[in-house]
């Protein structure tokens, strides 16, 4: 396997092994007097800041800041980007993340000065386009989820969860129902769920999964009582399975006066097939950076709108976008006395909302349903073709993601992590591993719908080759990856002696060490 891991960008410095050379820190580059920006001549009187503010209140130049030209900046960041993986390079099978193609047209429309240059305090009368977009997006998300209102304010899924659970708490408080402190959470849930419950001063209570991988109904029934505020569900769940006992779950929870929060991370599987609002869910958050393809950006920004039933609308964060029935003008409604308050300084990640709206308009109803159909088809195709090579903990048709475990390969001393690292050599970003926690040695694969059958087949062949190699040459798999410049970074060292910033005083500490390093 050659050292081909550069996403096709061939023109970059390499060492004599053909490996991409490591790029030094920006602080290790540049030189005195280099300039990377451009400013017009000052056309108003200069101000002597030391005179204006008092000399003691002024700092000098920031010693450690670099001095580089625009060319240096471009080359530096271009070169380090080549040590990264993007969705455009090929299948990105990360379970639960929905790494689908990010359409280029979104990047074009969002940069229009009417959007990009808009200040949040621009009067509503001159922001009708932006407000109209937000209103239309809310309507579309309400239609997709079958729910009543949607707040576009939360910046990501976790913040959406926080918003949703706060609204549930406010709802119970408004009814004088102060005893409700418990939040029931399946053991397969994403870590943000119990973290969110604690944040809201509530007590997370774990509910076990049954042998099928879905919620244990009897365990749920035993815990659901008048001290329960909510159930936090994921549907389809983190095992990629639809909670088919949803009706009973709704009866039990509503029967004891609790609310149902549903984590919409897996919405990609059910678009147009079922709607949370129709199946008993009271609060549903949406990850725009998953289902609605706003770019992952290496970790954000995201968008976490929260859809709610009518009874929860009074508690939505403020402001909401409304339309004046007389003038037909859109406006921001701050007059919401029961609102939980605000979770973002302004109105949410507007730039992300524009992209999500453009996507929904490009697809339409038929396109959205096709997303779910192809996503589920692709995952089942992978499951069928790999089930002879990897252990399948839940042998039933999956939804948009399939989970294997490393049980078969472990017999040869090869773990899920090793399989992941070896997949890198085949040119793929690894799937999600060791999540959900209820499956030991889990490998979670989500192909999404934005992949051709040929690319699926190539991925499947790579997985089959690794399974075979685990039997015939397990050491080679365990020593993977072989094709990246760095291999098996010492995370224990990073945690024991954290070095979290470069400093001019300690520049020596940061010098790369060891053979083959560059500076």
């Amino acid at each position, binding site marked *: 396997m050659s050292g081909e891991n550069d996403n096709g960008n061939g023109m970059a410095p390499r060492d004599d092994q053909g490996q991409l050379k490591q790029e030094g820190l920006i602080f290790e580059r540049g030189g005195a007097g280099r300039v990377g920006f451009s400013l017009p001549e000052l056309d108003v009187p200069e101000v002597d800041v030391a005179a204006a503010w008092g000399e003691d209140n002024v700092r000098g130049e920031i010693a450690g800041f670099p001095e580089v030209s625009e060319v240096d900046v471009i080359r530096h960041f271009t070169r380090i980007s080549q040590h990264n993986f993007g969705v455009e390079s090929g299948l990105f099978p990360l379970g639960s993340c929905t790494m689908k193609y990010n359409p280029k047209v979104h990047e074009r429309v969002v940069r229009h000065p009417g959007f990009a240059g808009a200040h949040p305090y621009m009067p509503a009368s001159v922001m009708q386009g932006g407000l109209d977009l937000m209103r239309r997006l809310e309507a579309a998300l309400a239609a997709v989820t079958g729910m009543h209102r949607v707040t576009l304010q939360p910046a990501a899924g976790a913040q959406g969860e926080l918003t949703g659970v706060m609204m549930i708490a406010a709802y119970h408080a408004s009814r004088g129902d102060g005893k409700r402190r418990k939040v029931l959470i399946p053991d397969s849930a994403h870590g943000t769920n119990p973290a969110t419950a604690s944040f809201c001063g509530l007590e997370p209570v774990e509910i076990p999964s049954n042998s099928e991988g879905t919620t244990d109904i009897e365990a749920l029934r035993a815990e659901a009582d008048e001290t329960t505020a909510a159930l936090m569900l994921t549907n389809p769940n983190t095992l990629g399975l639809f909670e088919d006992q949803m009706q009973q779950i709704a009866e039990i929870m509503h029967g004891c006066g609790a609310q149902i929060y549903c984590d919409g991370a897996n919405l990609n599987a059910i678009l147009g097939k079922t709607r949370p609002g129709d199946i008993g869910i009271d609060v549903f958050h949406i990850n725009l950076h998953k289902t609605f393809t706003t770019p992952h950006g290496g970790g954000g920004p995201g968008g976490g709108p929260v859809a709610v039933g009518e009874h929860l609308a009074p508690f939505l964060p403020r402001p909401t976008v409304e339309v004046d029935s007389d003038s037909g003008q859109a406006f921001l409604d701050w007059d919401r006395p029961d609102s939980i308050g605000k979770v973002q300084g302004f109105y949410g990640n507007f730039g992300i909302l524009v992209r999500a709206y453009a996507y929904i308009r490009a697809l339409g109803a038929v396109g959205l349903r096709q997303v779910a159909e192809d996503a589920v088809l692709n995952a089942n195709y992978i499951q069928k073709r790999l089930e002879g090579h990897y252990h399948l903990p839940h042998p039933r048709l999956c939804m948009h993601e399939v989970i294997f475990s490393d049980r078969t390969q472990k017999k040869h001393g090869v773990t899920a992590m090793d399989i992941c690292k070896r997949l890198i050599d085949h040119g793929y970003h690894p799937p999600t591993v060791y999540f959900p926690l209820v499956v030991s040695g889990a490998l979670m694969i989500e192909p999404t719908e934005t992949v051709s059958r040929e690319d699926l087949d190539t991925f499947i062949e790579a997985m089959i080759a690794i399974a075979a190699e685990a039997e015939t040459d397990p050491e080679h798999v365990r020593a993977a990856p072989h094709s990246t410049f760095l291999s098996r970074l010492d*995370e*224990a060292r990073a*945690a*024991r002696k954290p070095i979290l910033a470069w400093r001019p005083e300690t520049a020596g500490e940061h010098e790369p060490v060891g053979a083959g390093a560059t500076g």
Partner: protein
Amino acid sequence: MAEYPQFYKYTAEHEWISVEGGVGTIGITHHAQDELGDVVYVELPAAGDSLEAGKPFGTIESVKAVSELYAPVSGEVTEVHDELVEKPELVNEDPHGEAWMIRVRLADAGQLEGLMSAADYQKFLEAADSGH
């Protein structure tokens, strides 16, 4: 097979305690450090703090996991092994010796009766293992 010192007592949460003159020295077992992986951080109480048997007295972190440390007995903390904060890797290297965590003046020596001997602890580990 790890050697579990004969004169130590053990808990189901994988702590050990060694008592001399009414003062117990406490750490975690070889099994615990093995499960955790490379230990990166240990958070310990201060001298003078009081411990309650069965309640957490600190935390221990590896790269991918964090666990509470549970007090085998009740009592007052007399000494804290501060060096562990600087060198958490000692827990992996010598969990039963160099990596002692705290010393406690026992409030009630009778509590030791409820803890496991080395042989019992070893059986406990074997039973847990076969259940997987």
